[in-house]
Each structure stands twice: as C-alpha cells, then as structure tokens.
C-alpha cells in the first residue's frame, strides 16, 4: 500500500517529521510511506486564476497517486500551523486531490496535550466541502512532550506509545481498504470537484 506522510510544518527541525520517519521505517513491511514537505510551498493568496503553482501540482499528484495520507501536525496557538493551512488552502482552491482520500491525523507537540486542539481543527478543516477527505474516525494519536519522545536512533522511547501507534496504523490500513470498497469512482466526485462557495450562496447548488 502506498501512503503520503505530510509533514505539517515548515520548521527546519520538527518532531512531527521525526514521527513520520519513525512510521516510515517501522511500518515498511505493510506500507510504503513517502514523506512530503511543505516548507518550500508558496503562501496561499487566493489568486484570480485557480491554477496550481508547480510545487502544489507536484504535491497534489503525489497525493492523487497514493492510497491514503497521514498528516502529522504540530500545534501552534491551539490550531494547525499557518504553513499547513496554506498548503491545504492551495489544494482546496486548485486541484482538490483529497476528495474521498483516506486520511489519518497524528501530531507531536512539546507540551503535555500533544496537539489535541490542532487535531480537532484539522479534522473540521479536512471535512469542509471543497476538501471532503475521509478522515479516519476514532483515532487520535497525540504525542506529547515530543522533544523527549525519541532516542538517538529515532525510536520512540515509550513502548506504550509505540504499541498505540502500531495499532492505529493497522486500523488505518484496514480503513483504507474498506473505503476503497465503498467509494469506487464515487459518483459525487465530479460534482464535489466543481464545488464553489460563491455558487452555493448564489442558489445555484
């Protein structure tokens, strides 16, 4: 199975990147995780043309080709970082590759709560009509005190947290397989891709 692991920050060092790298290594037997970065994407500015800049198109193609996406988000001011929000806005505004795409949210933060509020926001965001991702329910993988969470080899030091992640990963792989069965070439796909906020309020929807 092919997955994209999206690093939810533009920071040069990130425990969320570390978390994805850990998953990439440890779950290599069951899934091939490609890590995608957002650091070099332009800032979203709602241009008149709805054409994706090259770097967004590349990310979008990568997501389209994958069976599912894992987003690892930090928490900045009780929400997701602006850089991640900007990447999502681009995708929603241009190519919309996340429609019907299975997504698992994980997050690492330096504080105790481990991104719970950012994850709740991200869930709501990904369910907006122009994104319509299939966010995996019932899973909330929160890695608190993330600066202390990994050893020098990049392994999780807390075995309970490692087991929890392995279980969540298994559940996600099942979720991807299941959703594939129920959404073959979804008939709303095309319609969703044409969704526009201006349109619904013009009463044309």
């Amino acid at each position, binding site marked *: 199975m092919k997955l994209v692991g999206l690093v939810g*920050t*533009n*920071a*040069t060092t990130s425990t969320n990147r570390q978390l994805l790298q850990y998953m990439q290594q440890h779950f290599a037997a069951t899934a091939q995780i490609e890590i995608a970065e957002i650091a070099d994407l332009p*800032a*979203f*500015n*709602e241009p*008149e043309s709805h054409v994706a800049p090259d770097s967004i198109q590349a990310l979008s193609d990568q997501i389209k080709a994958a069976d599912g996406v894992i987003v690892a988000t930090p928490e*900045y*001011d*009780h*929400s*997701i*970082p*602006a*850089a991640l*929000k*900007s990447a*999502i*806005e681009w995708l*929603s505004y241009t190519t919309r590759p996340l429609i019907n795409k299975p997504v698992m949210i994980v997050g690492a933060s330096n504080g105790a709560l481990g991104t719970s*509020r950012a994850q709740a*926001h991200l869930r*709501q*965001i990904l*369910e*907006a009509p*122009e*994104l319509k991702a299939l966010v995996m329910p019932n899973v909330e993988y929160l890695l608190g005190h993330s600066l202390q969470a990994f050893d020098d080899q990049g392994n999780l030091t807390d075995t309970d947290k490692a087991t929890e992640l392995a279980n969540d990963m298994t559940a996600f792989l099942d979720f991807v397989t299941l959703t594939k069965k129920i959404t073959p070439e979804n008939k709303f796909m095309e319609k969703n891709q044409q969704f526009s*906020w*201006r349109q*619904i*309020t013009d009463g044309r929807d």
Partner: protein
Amino acid sequence: MKLIGIVGTNAKQSYNRELLTYMQRHFKAQAELEILELTDVPLFNETADQAKYPIIQTFNDKIAAADGVVIATPEHNHSVPSALKSIIEWLSFNLHPFDGKPIMLVGASYSVQGSSRAQLHLRQILDAPGVNASVMPGSEFLLGRAQTTFDDHGDLKSAGTVAFLDSCFAKFMKFVTLVQAMAVPDAVSYQPGTYDVTAVGHNGNLPMSVTLSKNRIEDIQIDTSTETKGIAEVAFQRIPKAIIDGQTLAVDAISGASMTSHGVIDGVAEAIKAAGANPDDLKKRQAKTNAAPQNITDITTDVVVVGAGGAGLTAAAKVLQSGRNVLVVEKFPAVGGNTVRAGGPMNAADPDWQHQFDAIPGEKHTLTEITQIDEATIAPEYLADFRALKTQIKAYLKENTDQRGYLFDSTLLHRIQTYLGGKRTDLQGHEIYGQYDLVKVLTDHALESVKWLEKIGVEFDKTQVTMPVGAIWRRGHKPMGDQGFAYIKALQKFVTAHGGRILTETPVQSLTTTDGQVDGLIAKGPNDTKVIVHAKAVILASGGFAANTKMLQQYNTYWTAIDDDIKTTNSPAMTGDGIRLGTSVGADLVGMGFSQMMPVSDPETGELFSGLQVPPQNFVMVNQAGKRFVNEYGSRDELTQAAIDNGSLFYLIADDEIKKTAYNTTQAKLDAQVAAGTLYRADTLVDLAKQLQLDPAVLTKTIADYNSYVDAGEDPEFHKNAFDLKVAVAPFYATPRKPATHHTMGGLKIDTHAHVLNADGQVINGLYAAGEVAGGIHAGNRLGGNSLADIFTFGRIAATQALKDELTVTVD
C-alpha cells in the same frame, strides 16, 4: 479611542475589507480605526529571522499602541485563512502585542453561516497562551452571503444588520474600557531608600542611584561620564523623566541611543528588585499614549536645512550670520549625526602653523615619491597643479637637504593628495577620481573653515598637529574637548542663541516645488504630526547612506560582495534620505558605486572600539581556518577586500604584551567582554583555537610562523611592512572582526556653489546640498579628516549661495 482593524485575508478582493472600511467610516465619531493589511506578511516560520520583515514590527507596534483590535475574518475550509493565522503566529512567538488586548471579531463570508466556524476557531486561537488576547464574548457578528449585503457606496444595505453592528460595537467600546480597568496593575510598594546600582550602557558600566519612596520612583541620578558625548544625552534627559512621569518601565528606547536607554531602564529595574518589588509589574504599566488627532504645523522661513549634522548646522549658522531666518529639520532625537562620531581632527593646509613643527622620518620620503610620479598618470586637469607642487617640494627638499627641517604643507599638496587618495578603479574597470573644481574649492577654503569655526566658538589645540587615520599627511586641526562633538556643541549653541530653530524627531519625507523651483518640504513630526515648511531655499545636509545595506548593495560597483547582515560604524539615521529627496526632483547622482569600509569592526555592533585595537604593526589577522590571509599593514581597502574574500569574519590574535599596546580599552572592559563571549581569552593557543572552533594545529603553526617572521624581520608570505611584537606571552586573545560600512563617497551631483544639478547639468532652482549627501569630491576613497573639512566648507558655501540666489543677500 484608537483601534486597529485587521483584514483577515491577503486576497485582492475581500468583503471583510469592505466591512472594515464601512466600520471605519460608520464609527468615525466614536473611534479612529486604522486598517492593516496582510498582503506583505510572510508565512510564519519558526527559524526565520523576524527582524528581516519590518512589517511584523509594524503590526506589533501598532497593535501594542492601540486600545483594541477588530479582526474581520473570512472562512477558508471551515477555519481562518492561513494568512491571518500566520500573523497571529508571528505575534505570539517572540512578540506578544495581543497580550490582554481587547478584541472584537467580525466576519463576512459567502455562505449563510457567515464564517461562524472560522470565528470559533479564531476565539480558540486568540485564547492560546502565547496570544492571550481578551476576546469580547458573545455578540458574534456574522455577515453571511456577503456578496449581496453592500450597496454601491460600500454601505450595508440592511437597516437591521446596521443596527446589530451598532449594538455589537457599542458593547465593544464598553468592553475596551472594562479590560483596560482590569489591566491597571496592582499597587506596587517599595522598601523606601536610595539604591546604588550599576547597569551596562554602551561604553561600559553606568553607575546610578535610584530613590524610591513607599510607592513611587522619586529620583534617578546617573553617572553619565563614560557614555558618548553627543549621542547619549537625549537618553539621559528623557528616559529617567519618562520613567518618573509615568511611574513605568514601559518606555521606548531613544533611536540612536538605544543601548544607553536600555541601560537606564535595566538599572531602575535592578533598584526596584532590590527594593522588594517586581520590575515586570512596572513593565506592564503602559505609559498611556493619548494618540493625538493628526496635527498640521505650517512654518514659513527663509532657508530650511535638512539634517542637523555638521554640514547642516554650519549652513544654518551662516544663514543666521546674515540676519535671515533658518529652520533645521532633523530626523533623530539628537542633533549631530555622524559628525559626533568623527575622530575630531579636520584637514586644512596651514603652512604658517605647520612650519612650527619638525618633520618626522618618512615625510621627506613621501614627498620625494610624489615628485617621482609619472606625469602621464596624472589627470590633465590636475597637471598644472601637480607641476607647481613638484616645484614647491623640490625647493623645500633642497632647502632642507642637510637638516631635519620643518613640517611641509601647502594647499597644492592637500589637493593632489585628495586627488591621488580618491583614485580608484571599480570591478567594471571604471576609473574614478575627485572632480577637480570641487577638490580645488575644498582645499582652497578648508583653512577658512577652521578660522570660521573658531569664530563660532570651536577651540582648536594649536600645540599639536595630527594625522587622522587614513589621512596620509599631518594637517589635522584637532578641536579641544570631545572629538566630533566639539563642533556640534559649538554650532548648536550658536544656532539656538541666534534664533535658529531646530525641530528634532522630524524626518523630512518629501520636497515641494512650484514651477520647477524647490520651495519647501514636508516632514513627519513627533506623534504623527505633519510639518509643512515653506522656504526660499532648501539645503540638503542629511548625510550618506552607509546605514542602508540595501542601497549600498544596489549601487555597489566596487566591492565583490556586501553581506546582507553587514554592520555599520554610522548612526542608524544614515539611510540616504537626502539622495532620495534629491532624485525625486530630478537630481543627478555621481560616484554612487564607491563606498568605504572599516575592516576591523565588531561583527555584532559595527563599532571600532570593542575588543583589542592595537597599532597595525601588532595586528595578527587569521581567517576562519586559522591562517593568516593578508598583509596586516595594508590599506583599509586591501584589508576589507581580503576579509570579504575570506568569508568576512576574522580574528585579531594578541598576547599579553600586545594587549598593553591597545589604545581603546581597560582590563575591566576586557573581562566583561570575555564574560559576554564577544572576546576570547585562553592560557594556551590550543585552547584559544578550540574556543574559536579552529584546528589547534593550524593556529599554532600560523603563530609560530608569524613569530619567526618577526625574528627574521621579514614576512615571506604576505610581506607585512612593519611588525613589532611576537605572540608569545599568555594569556592569548582573539578579537572577532568583520568589515563594516563606514562612508559613502557618492551622492547628489553639485557644482562649486553647492547647487544640486540635474542630469542635463542644469541647476535645480532652490535646492542646495552639502556634506556626505553630495558626491564628486572624495571619489573612490575619502582621506581621513577630509570629511570634516568638506562639510564645514560646503555647508558655508551652500548657505552663502542660497542667500545670494534666493534672498539677494551678498555675503563677504
């Protein structure tokens, strides 16, 4: 009430912008609502240097100064736009202007719910500890179906919506007052007494004593003797007063004297701590700024001068001597500009005076060398003077063949040395040298300037003739007292005593013209006042642009590279404003590609006088690989280019004996710098290398080689011209150095009467320029001590000519 409105999107078209613009108009009577746009705000990045983006500082300052903030947010994907999230992240990371700030949320969106989800997210975001804003509860103003709600004038169509917005806003006004009342800090109480504390100022320790009564700061006394004269005074006058008047430590530092300002604030904080109170409580006490509505000051005068540095105050004094009115408009809180930073001596050939002094070894040699210069290399316009000079020199040498002789000088020698010293070729192969007619005026009238300054009240030390650094010849007239400040002190006193007016903290922003004649200017005064000046003539004396790295890089044709983070020896005011003002009315520029660097400057502050500054014969310079890389006795330009080629940062290595030859420091200062990590000291070279993260073997070998050259009296590697001491006696020191920008030779094109010229070589009526803002004289390299000669000479000429042209006053 002063409010800030933030348009929560960077999109070109936005109903949220329309909503805020409507609110700005609609609530004009209740509040001044200033709208800020996110267009230029970069995406937040933890590791980016926020100081690179002035826009973030602008947001910070404006929000900090406002009574409240209105945020109008669109909804993007059920949340706030990334652009809005981004500025909040910037303002919650190192800066925290939202802390305790009353905030009202409004939102317009296409859907019927009108941004309700975005507003909910925004509430949670603004509640995060790094932001900690006080968001008004309830009164959720949601403008759904935004594209249908405004009429052609941008007014809200529905009376019901307007009424609801009115009620939300009225509630917000009350909310602001409520939050402000809550923010009044708890009473602070001190253990009464006088506390002696020591804060760190710019040049070292600032001893002060602070007197506290039970609940007031009563008095602040500071020993000001160590801080720089002419720079620090404003801080000493204003900071203690602001602290006592406001009973707060939340006072702004003075531009140009921020280190002294922070020193004073830190010292008072120290005393407050000693008196058992928490200085943070006083830092939270906002000195209430009652933002005055925009005032306009309209002034009519005969001559207006831009910049109160040496050239500007000279021009002003000259106008006053003719009984005319003058106004000097100065950007900074203190007068003096770079002139107060100058070493002091000004060049002027005064043979009668110089003849009293004996010649020193080497001078005859220098003169002989001049007579041997190939005439083919001398520019034709200088040739006649060059030949006349040779005759003078030969006569002098003949007269003194058998004796040591006196110190020779003449205006011709000054002129030819200024010409030769300024001759340079840039990277594109263009040669430049000082314009003959301007150099002639400078050298012919420099002595007159000395005499004129004496009449104004500058006293010179006649007992010694000095050679300023980089001057080539001993013809420096050194004022008594504090170096460059000595001139400013006398000039300022003269100007104010004779009815001249000086407006400080009033940067000039534009010139005004009528039918091509410059007839005044517009400036921004303190508290956002607008100052309009009408005058018969405008004299630009606003200095150079060595503190404007972008501009230096833009014009540079001489250095292979100018680092983005290069520091400067200049006052931060030197941003080339006068050059921009001049070109805005068509002025031509000359020699802009050539700037002067000071190779041995502090990498963090650009200053000369940190670390160990020793005579060049004792410099041992090593690069970041631990190797020597240049003849340490080379010219400023040679040292600078070599440093640039070696990655800019290098170290001056010294031992305990070399330390004794330093002319800038004391043991206490050195100890403090070692403790602060700005100077390195170790008992062995190996240890020193480790501290510098150099290979110990390389550094040890470099020094061993150097010491062997000192023994042999010859440096086969770089051919250092003169050396003195070896590096041998522990402890060893390493002073980090980098080139810093120092002087800009290029500038506005002027004629010999200081008229500013346009690209066709024609005079721009009403506009004059003097000092570092003008170009053409020093060309590729300014000789030490020539700048002061220039500013006092051309400052007088500019005033004289302006009076003659525009006021038909003839000055002797």
